[in-house]
């Protein structure tokens, strides 16, 4: 893929950091307000309904809390594993000078992105087993490559004259990495992690199909039993979680970003 194309795609996914210095933009406050309003409307709607026995079994706080906990656990653990694997691997790859290796990584990452997540998760469940562990592995396998690619791109896009100047000032390779390259690559790396986090929330919804719990359970139960309040609650809560996580990651992105870039 040409540089132009990847830049356009970065534009499409909003990874380009053009929000510099706008700590208190509308978006910063807009998202939490939207989340609170949506949840309040949902709660108001649910409390105005008379629930039958099937709905009461799922629309109560302990059940909802447990599904949310399962969902968040899957998302957070998967993202942590992704960060631990992908970032160091990206750094190591950036030290490898071979163009062929980079091309191979990029093309595998591209093919990986067109793999349907649901297909990967279900395939893993069929050939192995169902449950939390397999869902976790599916999530990690799916998101490792994009984060790795962002790490690599983040380090490669640094102006070579900067690293050269650092070396000229007498910095050792490790110092150049830790004090020049990584801080400059952080925005791109975090953007990759943020995408992976949001993505994990989405795929964790699908994890219900392989018996790994989460809020997808509510969607599937609501659909199977034709209980729309259950389905809507599951779908709305999971969307709010995705928005909240994206918002938090955006906040982290702005705070971690080094001053002066």
């Amino acid at each position, binding site marked *: 893929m040409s540089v*132009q*194309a990847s830049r*356009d*795609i970065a*534009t*499409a*996914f*909003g990874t380009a950091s053009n929000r510099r210095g706008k700590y208190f933009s*509308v*978006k910063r406050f*807009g*998202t939490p307000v*939207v989340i609170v309003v949506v949840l309040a409307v949902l709660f108001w709607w649910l409390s105005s309904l008379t629930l039958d026995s099937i709905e009461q079994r799922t629309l109560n706080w302990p059940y909802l809390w447990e599904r949310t906990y399962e969902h968040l656990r899957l998302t957070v653990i998967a993202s942590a594993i992704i960060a631990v694997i992908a970032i160091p691997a990206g750094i190591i790859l950036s030290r490898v000078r071979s163009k062929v290796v980079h091309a191979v990584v990029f093309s595998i990452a591209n*093919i990986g*992105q*067109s*793999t*349907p*997540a*649901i*297909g*990967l998760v*279900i*395939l893993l*469940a*069929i*050939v192995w087993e*169902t449950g939390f562990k397999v869902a976790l592995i599916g999530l990690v396998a799916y998101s490792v490559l994009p984060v790795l690619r962002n790490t690599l791109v983040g380090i490669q896009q640094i102006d070579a004259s900067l690293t050269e100047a650092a070396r000229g000032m007498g910095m050792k390779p490790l110092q150049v990495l830790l004090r020049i390259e990584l801080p400059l690559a952080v925005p791109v790396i975090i953007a990759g992690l943020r995408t992976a986090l*949001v993505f994990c*929330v*989405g795929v964790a*919804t*699908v994890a219900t*199909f*392989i018996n790994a719990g989460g809020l*997808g359970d509510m*969607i599937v139960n*609501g*659909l199977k039993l034709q209980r*729309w309040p259950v*389905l*809507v609650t*599951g*779908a*709305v809560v*999971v*969307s709010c979680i*995705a*928005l909240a996580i*994206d918002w938090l990651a955006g906040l982290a992105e702005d705070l971690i970003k080094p001053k002066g870039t």
Partner: protein
Amino acid sequence: MDNSFFTRLGSFLSTRSADIAASATEHLVVVLVSLLIATVIGVGIGILVWDRPISRSLAIASAGVGLTIPSMALLALLIPILGLGWLPTIVGLAFYALLPIIRNTVVGLQEVPAAVSESARGMGMGTTKTLFLVQLPMAWPVVLTGVRVSAQLTMGIAAIAAYVGGPGLGEMIFKGLSSLGSRNAVNYAVVGTAGVIILALLLDAAFVAIRRLTTSRGLRV
């Protein structure tokens, strides 16, 4: 084991080739229809908002918010309103496809050098003529990349849409799951998944050709 897996996959492919081809065609059709709808609406919205700062940032911010909503949740929310089948699938897919297209249309139109638009005006072109003869053709490569991103996105989401009764290869993946433990379970899931990957790669390659053919001659490198 490996050998028997491939022979079984081979016989699965040959006995069900008609089914597989039908599913793949449906998958492609549903993606292309959604993309077409999304392109028309998305470029339209992009044209309307790109030089109005407030509605522009509103459109881009809501596009970003839209992309974070899990596809399974959105498709589920459409069921009580639209029922099952093609309709919620196309609406859901078009929704996701819309977002990158709006964003790229806005960015593409903004990147057109002001001097070029101004000289078009100076040559006596009106606002509409400038838009269609100068600004849109110059923004087109960026817009098309948005459509291409949307195509990859909707290919994967279309597989999930099988759960709300949507057509396509997702049906095969879910058939594999529901026949878990039987001999053909793996075959169904493998064919469904690999089919989506192959379709996505083919469509992506097609976009390279479309980009070349539809980009204005002066912009081709």
